[in-house]
């Protein structure tokens, strides 16, 4: 790891003032610390967000769930209130990494990092989420812009994420067995006004799958998802899975997710 200065501000204003420099924000650190250890990333300073107040709350209302950016995956997984209101999201959080990673890793860190195989981005897209930052609100549809790229400006800090509560939903992922990240992950959410399908692991960043959304809006059944043959031209291809295989996984996982959503 290259040397850096460490800061731990206790107010949002102080964090943002520090954030104007050549620094990185540190949330749970489960990706950032590892990539700094490998010298894949370096920074002049780390701004640790752990002491900021009001960043770990889970709020449930009739039509939305709002989760503070520093809420850990374990807190999301084990919140009884969230599990009752939006079980698909609690199950997604319970499937991230392993128990130790879930005790440190955070929603805001995962979303800001925008790993192409991270689970949360699929949920943000399917649940029509809104990312609230220190300065504005960003719709999930415009948030993930590329490989580890987001719509966040330099120094912009995620405060919370608001998810729209669906009628039925489920997340299904095919794990890459070593990393436990998603080889492909599909979040299917049936809302009153249509179905949204968020996919992670299959392209440079998470995306909505329009052909499956249209099929499921007409007929919310596993067969409707399964019969969609997606083009593989822009799917990711690596030593773990080829593009054609990933394209097939999207439809297959969507079908399984529909089965589980219907069972709720």
């Amino acid at each position, binding site marked *: *790891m*290259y*040397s*850096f*200065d*460490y800061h*731990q501000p206790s107010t949002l204003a102080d964090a943002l003032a520090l954030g104007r420099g050549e620094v990185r924000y*540190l949330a749970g*650190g*489960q990706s950032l*610390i*590892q990539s700094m*250890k*490998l010298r894949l990333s370096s920074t002049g300073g*780390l701004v*640790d967000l*752990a002491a900021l107040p009001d960043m770990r709350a889970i709020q449930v209302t009739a039509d939305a769930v709002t989760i503070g950016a520093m809420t850990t995956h*374990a807190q999301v997984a*084990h919140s009884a209130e969230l599990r009752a209101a939006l079980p698909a999201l609690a199950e997604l959080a319970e499937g991230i*990494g*392993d*128990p*130790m*990673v879930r*005790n*440190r890793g955070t929603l805001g860190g995962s979303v800001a990092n925008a790993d192409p195989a991270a689970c949360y981005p699929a949920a943000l897209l399917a649940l029509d989420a809104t990312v609230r930052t220190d300065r504005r609100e960003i719709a999930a549809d415009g948030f993930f812009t590329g490989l580890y790229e987001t719509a966040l400006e330099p120094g912009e800090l995620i405060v919370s994420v608001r998810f729209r509560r669906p009628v039925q939903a489920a997340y299904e992922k095919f794990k890459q067995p*070593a*990393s*436990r990240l998603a080889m492909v992950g599909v979040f299917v959410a049936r809302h009153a006004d249509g179905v949204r399908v968020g996919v992670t692991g299959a392209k440079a960043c998470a995306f909505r799958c329009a052909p499956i959304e249209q099929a499921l809006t007409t007929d919310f059944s596993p067969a409707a998802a399964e019969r969609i043959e997606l083009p593989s031209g822009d799917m990711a291809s690596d030593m773990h899975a080829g593009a054609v295989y990933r394209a097939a996984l999207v439809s297959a996982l969507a079908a399984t997710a529909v089965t589980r959503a219907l069972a709720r």
Partner: protein
Amino acid sequence: MSNVTVSLQVNGQPVSRTVDSRTLLVELIREHLKLTGTHVGCDTAQCGCCTVQLDGHAVKSCSMLAIQANGGQVTTIEGLATGEALHPVQQAFRDCHGLQCGYCTPGMVMATIELLKRNPKPSEPQIRAGLEGNICRCTGYENIVRSVQAAAGV
């Protein structure tokens, strides 16, 4: 080099060290405090050898900075036994031969304590899922699962 002062409790004892800000929690534990029961296996957050408890939750001490544990309470494998009496999870691993070379064992024990705290009577699939972040290259996991079952009384 940029230094920070880390003050925390380790196995109930107050500790304070001024270290390079890059120092990992596992480096503080092993190299500065000489508590070498916590191991480094993969050093990339895969294997779980470095698992310790921070404020009552299992964490991978190779995946966080020492300064991130500032003000916290850390328990390592050395802090579990009461005198000569092993912690019930340690005793169960001993009774059920839940280890061979022992390298992964401190992390397995720490992860098991977290697992049983969240779910005191886990099923076998729940045990295997709860230990997903800990890799053992000797036992084939069978006796580890039996150890956890013995500790849980299931």
